C-alpha cells in the first residue's frame, strides 16, 4: 500500500486508464476511489434493484470525484441519474424507493452538505423499521465524501460522522483502505438497513492496494488490526489510520516500543470486543479522530474503554482530535495547525508511554 501523492478537494480527472472499462487492468492496484467504483459496478450487475442518484453522479461527469464515472453509460440513465440540487430530496426519495423494494445508493456530494438531509436521515431512514414494527425496511446507502486536508475550507472538509453514529437505526462505516472501501460498500448495499458510508477524500487517490477477488465482503462492525503492538493501542479510522501508522513506525524506530493500531472501519456498530481485547493487552489507549474533539466520535470509544478496561489501564485513555473550531480554514497554514501531524502524535504517544 502506498501513501502519498496528491489528493485534491475537487474533481480531478482520473487517470484515463480505467475509464469506461468497468475495471482497471488486472495488474493494477486500484485506488480507494476506484475500489468504490468497482463495488458499485459489481453490485449493480448483481442486483438490478440497485440504483444510483445524486448531484452530478450521472452523465459524463460521474460525480465530482468521478466515483460513478461511466455508470450511467453502463447501466442506463434510468438506474443512474442526476437529481435536482436538493439533499433532503435525494435522501427522502431514496427512502421511498427503499420502502418500495429497491436498493438506492445515493450520493451526498460533500459531507458538509448532508445537513439539509438530516431530517430525512435521523427522523425517517433511521426509524422506518422500528416505527413500522418491522413492516418496512430502509435498505439504502448514503455515500458521503468527507474529511480534511484537501484545502476544502469550512464547507468541503467536515467530518460529521459522529452525529450519525449517535442515531440508532443507522449504520456508519468509515473505511480506511481500498480493500475495506470495496468490501464494506458491497456489504452496505446488501444490508437491509440504512448505511452512511463515509469516504475519506484524502484517501481517494492517495491509497492503492491489490484487491482480492470480485466478491469479497468485509463484515460491518468488525475492526481491523492495522499494525500489531504491545505497548499502547491507538484506536482510529479514516485517513488518520495512515498518520497513526507513521507515528507508530517512528516510535518503533526510536525506542523499539511497538504501538498497536486499530482501524475501526465501522463506527456504528463499533467493535467493542477488539478494542477491549487490545487495550487489556497493552494497558494504554489513545483514541485518534478527525471530528472536533468535544462530543466527538472518540469520546464514545474513550468512555467505553474507560468503563470496560478500567482494571487493566496503566494510564488515562487519551484523546487526540481536532480542536473545537468550526471546521478547517482555507489558509494552508491554518489547515496545518488544525490537523493532527505525525510529529504531534508521536509526542502524545511518547507522553502516554512515559505515564
Amino acid at each position, binding site marked *: 500500500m502506498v501513501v502519498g501523492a496528491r489528493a485534491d478537494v475537487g474533481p480531478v480527472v482520473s487517470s484515463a486508464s480505467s475509464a469506461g472499462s468497468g475495471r482497471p487492468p488486472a495488474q493494477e492496484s486500484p485506488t480507494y476511489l476506484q475500489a468504490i467504483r468497482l463495488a458499485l459496478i459489481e453490485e449493480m450487475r448483481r442486483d438490478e434493484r440497485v*440504483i444510483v442518484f445524486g448531484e452530478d453522479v450521472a452523465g459524463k461527469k460521474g460525480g465530482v470525484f468521478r466515483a460513478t464515472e461511466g455508470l450511467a453509460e453502463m447501466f442506463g440513465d*434510468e*438506474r443512474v*441519474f442526476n*437529481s*435536482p440540487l*436538493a439533499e*433532503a*430530496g435525494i*435522501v*427522502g*426519495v*431514496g*427512502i*421511498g*424507493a*427503499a*420502502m*418500495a*423494494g*429497491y436498493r*438506492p445508493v445515493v450520493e451526498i456530494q460533500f459531507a458538509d452538505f448532508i445537513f*439539509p438531509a438530516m*431530517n*430525512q436521515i435521523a*427522523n*425517517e431512514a433511521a*426509524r*422506518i*423499521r*422500528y*416505527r*413500522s*414494527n*418491522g*413492516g*418496512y*425496511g430502509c435498505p439504502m446507502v448514503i455515500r458521503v465524501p468527507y474529511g480534511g486536508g484537501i484545502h476544502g475550507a469550512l464547507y468541503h472538509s467536515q467530518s460529521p460522522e459522529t452525529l450519525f453514529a449517535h442515531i*440508532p*437505526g443507522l*449504520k456508519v462505516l468509515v473505511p480506511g483502505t481500498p480493500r475495506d472501501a470495496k468490501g464494506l460498500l458491497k*456489504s452496505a448495499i*446488501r*444490508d*437491509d*438497513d440504512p448505511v452512511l458510508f463515509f469516504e475519506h477524500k484524502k484517501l481517494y487517490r492517495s491509497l492503492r492496494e491489490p484487491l482480492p477477488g470480485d466478491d469479497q465482503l468485509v*463484515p*460491518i*462492525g*468488525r475492526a481491523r488490526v492495522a499494525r500489531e503492538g504491545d505497548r499502547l493501542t491507538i484506536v482510529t479510522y479514516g485517513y488518520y489510520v495512515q498518520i497513526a501508522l507513521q507515528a507508530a513506525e517512528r516510535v518503533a524506530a526510536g525506542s523499539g516500543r511497538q504501538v498497536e493500531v486499530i482501524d475501526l472501519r*465501522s463506527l*456504528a*456498530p463499533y*467493535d*467493542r470486543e477488539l478494542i477491549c481485547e487490545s487495550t487489556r493487552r497493552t494497558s494504554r489507549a489513545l483514541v485518534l479522530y478527525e471530528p472536533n474533539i468535544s462530543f466527538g466520535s472518540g469520546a464514545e470509544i474513550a468512555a*467505553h474503554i474507560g*468503563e470496560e478496561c478500567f482494571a487493566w489501564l496503566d494510564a488515562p485513555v487519551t484523546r487526540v482530535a481536532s480542536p473545537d473550531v468550526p471546521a478547517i480554514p482555507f489558509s494552508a497554514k491554518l489547515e496545518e495547525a488544525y490537523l493532527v501531524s505525525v510529529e504531534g502524535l508521536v509526542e502524545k504517544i511518547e507522553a502516554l508511554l512515559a505515564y
Partner: protein
Amino acid sequence: MSTVSNEALVSLYRTMRLARAVDERLWILNRQGKLPFTVSCQGHEAIGAALAHVLRPGHDWVAPYYRDLALVLGLGASVEDVFLHALAKATDPVSGGRQMPAHWSFPTLRVLTTSSVTGTQTLHAVGAALVAKLKRSDEVAVTTLGEGATSEGEFHEACNFAAVRRLPVVFVVESNGWAISVPKREQLAVASVAVRAAAYGFPGEDCDGTDVAAAAASFGRAVERARAGEGPTLISAECTRLTAHTSDDQDTVYRPAEEVAEARKRDPITIARHALVARGAWDDAREEALAAELRAEVDAALGRAMAAPDPAPDTLARDVYAEGRYEGAGGVCRDTSASFVREAA
C-alpha cells in the same frame, strides 16, 4: 357533476361514517383517561374515502398523514387494527405499540409508515413513484398533507423531483385552514396551494374536500393521469377541522366560535347524507341500520383490542435493525449491552 354511482356513494358514506364512529370513540377513550392522545380525522372524511375509492389497494402506494383514518379504513385497514394501534398493544400491526395513534403503516396495503414530522412523507411517495416507473408498472403513488405542511422545504423538493422525472404521483393537500392555531393567511399568501403546481410544471387544481363525489372525481382524474404516465398532479382539497388539533390542544382559546359554527355546516358526512337523500338512495331507516351496524362493529373491535396484551418490555429494542439486536447475517449490530434498559427491563 358527479361520476359516482349510488352504490359507490353509499359505500363512500359508510367509510366516512365508520371513520367518524372510530374517531369519536377515540376521543371518548381519551376523555376517560384510557388513551393519552388522539388526533382526529373529523372534517377530513370525504377526502380519505374518496382517495381510497380511486386507488387500487395493495397495488398503489400511499404515504398518508395523521388525519387519514378514513383513507386507511377505505383501503381496507380493520377497525380492530386501528384500535390496537391507538391503544399501543403488543399486537398493534402498525407499529407494535411504538407510535402515537394515527401514524399509519400497513405494508400489505402499501400504506407507507409515517412519522409525525410534517411533510416528510411527500418525498417517500416520490420515491415509491420512482420505483413504480423504473419497474414499468402502472402503480401510482399518492401522498397527503395539511396546507401547513406545504410550507416545509421538503414539500418543494418532492414536487420538483417528481416534475423533473415526470413520476406517477399525486399530491393531495387536505386544506382545513388551520395548522394548529395558525390560520391559513399566516401560512401562505396565495388563496390555494394548487397554484404551486405551475411552479413545477404540472397541473394543479382545487376541489371541494367536503363533497366526497366531487373529491373522488378530482382525485380519479389525477390518478389516471399518473397511471397513464403523464406525471404528477397537485390537488388542494378544501375541508374543515371539526375538532381541536389534537386531544392536547384546546382550540377554544384561539378559534372564534363563529368559525367553528361555519365549519360544522361543512361537515362532509352531513353533506354526503344530503346528497344520498337527494338521489333517493338513502332514508332514515337505512341511516339507523347503518348506525347500529357501525356501533356494533366498533364495540366489538374495541372490545377485542382492549383485551389484547401490552407489549412486553423486551420488545423495546426489537426492529432497530433487521438482524435484531446483536448479531446477524449482514454483520454485527450495534449492541445495547452497555445501556440501562437491560437492567430496567
